[in-house]
């Protein structure tokens, strides 16, 4: 039998090592999964993790995609991680993402066909505001009525999806679209487009925002009182209250920031890579970002790396779908597995594993 002994202090080595080991274990378990699906596991893993970056046939297309996909993941995860550290569980980022996109797009389309350069910044602000407002619903319900923010934020995703369906087929539908669902294309119209800033890199304004968020969050968590209070509230809520931390303010702040970032991510996506509001323009970044936040140990730099890795699995997954016919859903299962392994290995940072029966010292 083996048993666990609590470490006096969390092990720094294991905090860094566990995500790496988790990725390796996921590759092995994923390989087994692909073998069950009748694929060559080594080839499948190679196609997912290496070919998008190094295979000449795909790299020129895939490499820029890395930033395109990592951008929203990182942006959302940075916000979520602040809340998770404080013990405030916003798991409805997907809804905030959708509402942000709708608000931002609606702002841009309201001025159509103007090409005024102020429109795009206005759209960003509208997206930010939309996501923030949507996240304020669970925040206010939690602080005023002590309603569980996990359930409310999640249920609001389905409400947001209903609004999205209505937007795509109703109030934002392209009047020139011959009745097809979906808004006007924002990315093909100057003034509302979120274009690649440096050709061939995939870098668009959303990626820039993600990098700024990483730096901002790093400074906040390590140097600023607010970051200290967030960590304190998550680790020891009673001590936080004793230290004068106002829990209401913290909930409003954490949910607000994560909602605003998710809303911005939605706008950048809809004005860039997705191009338009359609019934299913959202591809679950709001949920995958939860995995990114944990994989990155809720640490800004970790989230940056985890976002890139998770983006790679998306791109590699598409490639594997193309080359091997591996279903797209396999990648979702794969990402879920990664989170399992990470959570399972987490125990090593806080506990020592002793093998054998207790022995006298």
């Amino acid at each position, binding site marked *: 039998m083996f048993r*666990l002994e*609590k470490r006096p202090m969390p092990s720094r080595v294991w905090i860094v090592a566990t995500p790496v080991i988790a990725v390796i274990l996921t590759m092995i378990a994923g390989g087994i999964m692909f073998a069950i*699906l009748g694929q060559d596991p080594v080839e499948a893993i190679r196609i997912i993790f290496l070919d998008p970056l190094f295979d000449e046939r795909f790299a020129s297309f895939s490499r820029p995609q890395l930033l395109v996909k990592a951008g929203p993941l990182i942006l959302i995860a940075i916000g979520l991680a602040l809340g998770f550290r404080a013990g405030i*569980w916003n*798991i409805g980022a997907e809804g905030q993402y959708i509402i942000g996109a709708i608000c931002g797009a609606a702002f841009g389309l309201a001025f159509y066909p103007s090409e005024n350069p102020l429109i795009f910044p206005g759209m960003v602000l509208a997206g930010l505001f939309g996501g923030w407002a949507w996240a304020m619903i669970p925040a206010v*319900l939690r602080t*005023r*009525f*002590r*309603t*569980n923010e*996990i*359930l*409310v934020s*999640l*249920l*609001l*995703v*389905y*409400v947001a999806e*209903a*609004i999205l*369906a*209505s937007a795509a087929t*109703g109030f934002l539908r392209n009047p020139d679209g011959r009745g097809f669902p979906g808004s006007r294309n924002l990315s093909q119209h100057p003034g509302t487009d979120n274009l690649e800033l440096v050709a061939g890199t995939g870098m668009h304004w959303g990626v820039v925002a993600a990098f700024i968020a990483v730096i901002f969050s790093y400074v906040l968590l390590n140097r600023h009182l607010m970051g200290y209070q967030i960590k304190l509230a998550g680790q020891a809520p009673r001590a936080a209250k004793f230290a004068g931390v106002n829990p209401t303010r913290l909930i409003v702040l954490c949910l607000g920031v994560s909602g605003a970032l998710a809303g911005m991510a939605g706008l950048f996506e809809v004005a860039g890579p997705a191009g338009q509001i359609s019934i299913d323009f959202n591809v679950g970044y709001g*949920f*995958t970002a*939860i*995995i990114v936040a*944990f994989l990155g140990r809720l640490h800004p730099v970790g989230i940056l790396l985890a976002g890139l890795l998770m983006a790679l699995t998306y791109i590699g997954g598409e490639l594997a779908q193309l080359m091997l016919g591996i*279903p797209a*859903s*396999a*990648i*979702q*299962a*794969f*990402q*879920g*597995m990664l*989170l*399992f392994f990470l*959570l*399972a290995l*987490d*125990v090593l940072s*806080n*506990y020592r594993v002793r093998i054998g029966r207790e022995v006298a010292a």
Partner: protein
Amino acid sequence: MMGIDPVTLIVALIGASTPILLAAIGELVVEKSGVLNLGVEGMMIVGAVSGFIIAINTGSPWLGFAAGAVGGAGLSLIFALLTQYLLSNQVATGLALTLFGLGLSSLMGEAYTGINPPLTPDLFPQALRDIPVAGPILFGHDLVIYLSILLVAGVWYALHHTRMGLILRAVGESHDAAHALGYKVIRIRICAILFGGACAGLGGAYLSLVRVPSWTEGMTAGAGWIALAIVVFASWKPWRALIGAYLFGGIAALQLRLQAAEINIPVMFLDMSPYLVTIIVLVIISSDRGRAALNAPAALGKVFHASG
């Protein structure tokens, strides 16, 4: 409202409520043992797909329901191992379970979309079901619906009138005290988690085999989360979970009928109504600062580690 027959509405309500009721009663037991498993949605959908696959391949809906329960319990076993032995955070692990379950189920169900499952027969003979009003409401259902009500009664009885139930509540109240008295906290909690997984899986299978009946990706559409909300609504009381589930089922059934009747309400609002109503009910329940909150298991979501 015109065009909506109350009797068929009640029958539909009971059917629409059953998957959520099953999941909720399972989660209620899990939470009473002090564990918060947010993976209900994932367990439900894995139950839905496993039940569907087995029912198609064997032609028996009953084997399908059994497979659904096994599938849900199987997924919950991952949660049990991670949270009970590896002491992982229950909120994060539950979320992981849902994300993984959604992916796994669509992978498993790839080849099964657009097929009709074998029919689940009603329990009582036609003659009984033909009795006006009472017939369809009391006798017009299949075995699983009666089973779900029996399950509520069983859980209520077990929790409040058996030693097993007392021990379960004690573990959920204070794992340290239960451990000090010599109860196997981890073992008891794992059993509760597996029970919850089996119930959620059965609920999922009911969705794919009877309610819809077919398999589509993401078909649970938040039912698992609503089940979680119903547990809170019920203040961890089994009979109130039944009321909560039927209330929700009523709204779901009503809004579908309103959509079909082309009533002058935008579809958007009808679509979101079940979720909005759930949120509103949650707010009402949680704003009650009285001693009702006492029913919440005191150790809910806390990690247990016996230090020696």
